[in-house]
C-alpha cells in the first residue's frame, strides 16, 4: 500500500519534535495494515498533536479541545466499519478527562494515541496533567503542587482493556499502534516523546531517559484480562435486536357524546403513591373518547414515594388556550401534602366549586361546596383514592361519564389492574346510586 501522507502538506513541527516520528509510524502502520484513506478517520484534538489530520489523506475531523473522543464516538456509532484513530496530547487528557474515562468504560472501538510530551507545547510550555513535579515549565512553580497522572493506570482502572505505553523512539511503536488499531474495543497508547520547542529546553530529556523511565513504570498486563469484553457498538446492536417494538401513538376515536357539563378545571391534591398523575391521565383519555380537549400539568418533588403530588387538568369542548387553573371547578383533596402545597387555591372559592375531600385530611376554610368521603370504610386503599374520586364525578356526569371513564381505563390498564380498577369504580357507583 502507498503512504497515506499528504504530499502537499508535509509535517510542520519544530525540528526534532517527537510528533514527527509518530506521524511516520502511524503512516507505516496504516500501510502495513493495507488500509486506504477512506477506511480511516483521524480525529484530532487541540495543540501540536491536533495537526495530525492535516498531514494525512484520510477522513479527518478536527474539533474542540478535549472533545475529540466525543466526535469519534459519534462517528464510530454511525460508521462501525471505519477505523477511528484519535490523536490527543497530554493537554487533551486533562481538559477532556471525563471523556477519556467514559471511553474506557464504554469500550467503543476507538484507538486513542496520547502524544505525551509533559507540557503544553503550543501555548508556551505550561504544565499539563503529566508534567513531573520537579520539571521546569512555563507555569512557574505551579506544577510542583500537583501530582502527574499515569493515564494508563487510570484508563485500566476505568475499564479499558487495551492500555499500553510506548516511546516515540522505540522500534516496537508501529507494532503497538497496529495492535491497538486491530483491538476490537477502546485502546489507548500513551506515547512519550520530547518537545524540543519547549520542554527539553529547560528539562533534561532524551530517548534514553524516556526508555529508562518507561521501564520503571508499573506493568499494565492485567487490564486486558480484567477488562476484556464485547465492544460497545456490537453490544448495542445485540441489545436492540431483542427489543420489543415501540408502540405507535395511541389514537382514540370519538365515540361518546360529552356530558352536558363538560368544561371543568380539576385539581388533584394528593401525595406520592396515590397514582394522582395516572388518574389525571385517565381524565385526558376519557375526554378524548368524547372529543373533549384536555391539558394536564403535574407538580411533584424529586423524591419518589414521598411528598406532594399535584395535577391540574382542564377539560373543554373548545381548544384550550391558557393552561393555568384560574377558577377550579373540582378539587380532589386527597392528602395533606398536596393540600399544603396549594393552600392558596382554597381562597375565594364559591359554591360553584366542588371539593371532594377524603376523610381525615384538613382543608383551609372555604366557600366551596365540600363533600367528604370516607374511603377507608369503603375499603378503598389510599393508592386508589384518586381513581375513586374520578368515579364520583363520572357518576354525576361532570366532565366525564362512566362509559368514558371505563373506555379510558381499557386504554390505559390491562389484566388484573383493569379488573381491580373497575371494582373500585363500581364500589363508588353502588354507594352513590
Amino acid at each position, binding site marked *: 500500500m502507498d503512504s497515506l501522507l499528504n504530499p502537499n*502538506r508535509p509535517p510542520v513541527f519544530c525540528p526534532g519534535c517527537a510528533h514527527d516520528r509518530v506521524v511516520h509510524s502511524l503512516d507505516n502502520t496504516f500501510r502495513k495494515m493495507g488500509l486506504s484513506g*477512506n477506511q480511516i*478517520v483521524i480525529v484530532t484534538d487541540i495543540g501540536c498533536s491536533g495537526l495530525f*489530520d*492535516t498531514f494525512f*489523506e484520510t*477522513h*479527518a*475531523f*478536527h*474539533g474542540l479541545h478535549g*472533545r475529540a*473522543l*466525543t*466526535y*469519534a*464516538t*459519534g*462517528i*464510530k*456509532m*454511525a*460508521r462501525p*466499519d*471505519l477505523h477511528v484513530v484519535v490523536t490527543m496530547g497530554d493537554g487533551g487528557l486533562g481538559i477532556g478527562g*471525563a*471523556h477519556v*474515562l*467514559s471511553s474506557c468504560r464504554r469500550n467503543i472501538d476507538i484507538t486513542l494515541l496520547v502524544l505525551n510530551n509533559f507540557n503544553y507545547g503550543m501555548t508556551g510550555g505550561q504544565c499539563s496533567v503529566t508534567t513531573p513535579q520537579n520539571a521546569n515549565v512555563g507555569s512557574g512553580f505551579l506544577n510542583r503542587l500537583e501530582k502527574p497522572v499515569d493515564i494508563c493506570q487510570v484508563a485500566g482502572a476505568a475499564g479499558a482493556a487495551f492500555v499500553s505505553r510506548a516511546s516515540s523512539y522505540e522500534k516496537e511503536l508501529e507494532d503497538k499502534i497496529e495492535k491497538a488499531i486491530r483491538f476490537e474495543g477502546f485502546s489507548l497508547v500513551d506515547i512519550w516523546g520530547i518537545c524540543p520547542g519547549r520542554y527539553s529546553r529547560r528539562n533534561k530529556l532524551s530517548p534514553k531517559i524516556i526508555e529508562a523511565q518507561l521501564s520503571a513504570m508499573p506493568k499494565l498486563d492485567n487490564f486486558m484480562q480484567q477488562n476484556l469484553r464485547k465492544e460497545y457498538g456490537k453490544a*448495542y446492536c445485540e*441489545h*436492540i435486536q431483542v*427489543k420489543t*417494538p*415501540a408502540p405507535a*401513538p*395511541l389514537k*382514540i*376515536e*370519538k365515540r361518546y357524546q360529552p356530558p352536558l357539563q363538560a368544561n371543568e378545571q380539576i385539581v388533584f391534591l394528593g401525595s406520592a403513591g396515590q397514582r394522582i398523575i395516572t388518574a389525571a*391521565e385517565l381524565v*385526558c*383519555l376519557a375526554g*378524548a373518547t368524547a*372529543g*373533549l*380537549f*384536555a*391539558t*394536564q*400539568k*403535574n*407538580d411533584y418533588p*424529586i423524591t419518589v414515594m414521598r411528598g406532594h403530588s399535584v395535577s391540574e387538568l382542564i377539560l373543554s369542548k373548545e381548544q*384550550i*388556550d*391558557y*393552561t*393555568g387553573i*384560574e377558577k377550579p371547578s373540582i378539587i380532589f383533596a386527597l392528602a395533606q401534602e398536596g393540600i399544603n402545597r396549594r393552600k392558596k387555591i382554597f381562597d375565594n372559592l364559591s359554591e360553584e366549586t366542588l371539593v371532594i375531600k377524603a376523610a381525615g385530611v384538613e382543608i383551609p376554610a372555604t366557600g366551596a361546596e365540600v363533600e367528604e368521603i370516607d374511603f377507608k370504610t369503603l375499603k378503598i386503599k389510599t393508592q386508589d383514592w384518586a381513581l375513586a374520586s374520578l368515579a364520583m364525578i363520572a357518576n354525576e356526569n361532570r366532565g366525564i361519564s362512566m362509559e368514558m371513564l371505563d373506555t379510558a381505563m381499557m386504554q390505559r390498564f390491562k389484566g388484573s389492574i383493569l379488573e381491580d380498577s373497575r371494582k373500585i369504580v363500581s364500589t363508588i357507583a353502588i354507594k352513590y346510586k
Partner: protein
Amino acid sequence: MSYTVMEGNEAIGWGAIVAGCRFFAGYPITPATTIYNTMLKLLPDFGGICMQGEDEIASIGFCLGASMAGMKVMTATSGPGISLYSEQISFAIGSEIPLVIANVQRLGPSTGSATKGADGDIQFMRWGNSGGLPVIVLAPVDVKDCYELTVHAFNLAEKYRCPVFIAANKEISMTREVFDLDALNMPDIVERKNADPSRPFKPFDVSDGQYTPDFLPIGGETIVRQTSSTHGPEGYITTDSGQIGNNQDRLMKKIVSDVERFSFYESLPAKGAETLIISYGVTSRAVKTAVSRLGSEGLPVSHLILKTLWPVPEKVIKSIAASYNRIVSVEMNLGQYVREIQRILPGKEIEFLGRMNGELITPEQIKEVVNNG
C-alpha cells in the same frame, strides 16, 4: 378525527423520528429528560442510535460526529446544558454541521428551578456562541407545534447545515395535551444535499449563488475533512483574510437572507383593533385567552404569534405591525425579544409585560396591561 394524548416532549421525540432523526444523544436534565426517554424508547425500534453522554458536552459531541457521518441528529437539554453546549454550538455553526437542539427552558439563572418554566434563554440561544453568527430558533406554542416544528427544525438543519433550536418551555414540554395527530400540518421531509461524487470534492466549496455547501459524509468513498478551525473551501486552516471574510459573510447570509422562507407565525387580526400583542411560546396561549375576553368585553385586540424567533422575521413583524400604533410585547422573562421588536419598529409605542417567577403569565395580567397600559 381521532385524538392522541401526549406531552410536548413526547411530541418532539415523535416529530424527530418522522423527520428522519436516527441518532440522539443527551444527558438527563429536568424538564428535558422525557425527550431522552422517548428517543430511547423509539430509536432502537427504528434502527437508530440513542446514547447517554457522560455530560452535555459529550452528548452534543456525539451528535456532531454522527451528523458528519451522515445521520440526522438531535440532542435535548435545558439552560444549564445549553451553557455547556456553547463551544460545540459555535463549532456546528462555523463548520456547518446539521443538528437539532431541543432546549426545554426552565427558570434560570444557572441551575435555577428545575421544574419551573420560563423563556429566559431567548437571547442566549441566539448569542451564546463565540463569533456571534446566526442560528435558527423555532418556538412551539403547544404540543401540536412541538411535533410540527421539530420536523421543520430538521428540515432547516439539513437544508442550511446549521444548528436549529426548538425553544420549548417546561410549560409545554411537560404538559400533556389532547390533540389530533391526523390533522397535523406536516411539511415534506428535506434531505441533506449531497455533492456529486464524480466531481472533485471540497467540503466547504459553494458554486455561484449557493450559500450552503453540498455534503458528503465522513466514512464514505470520498475523503471528507471537517475542522473547527477557520478554514478555506478544502477544509484546511486558512489565514487568507479575503477567504475568511467571504466565508463569514456566507455563514451569515445563508440563514438571514432566507428567513422569509421559514418565517412561521400566526396572525390573528381583530376588526377595529388599535393594539397588537406580539408573543411567542406558551405565553401566546394566555394572550389568546386574554384577547378573547377583551373581545367579548368590547375591546378588539389583534395578536401576532411568532414561531420563528431567529433570525428575526423582520418583514412579518413590520408588515403586520404597520397598521397599529400600540404594540404590547409579552414574554416569560424580564425583557428579551422585546428588544428586537423595539429595534425593528422604531417610532411605535411599545409596551412590555414580562414576568419571571416560575408561573405562567395569566390572561388577567395581560388584560390589565392592555386596558390600563
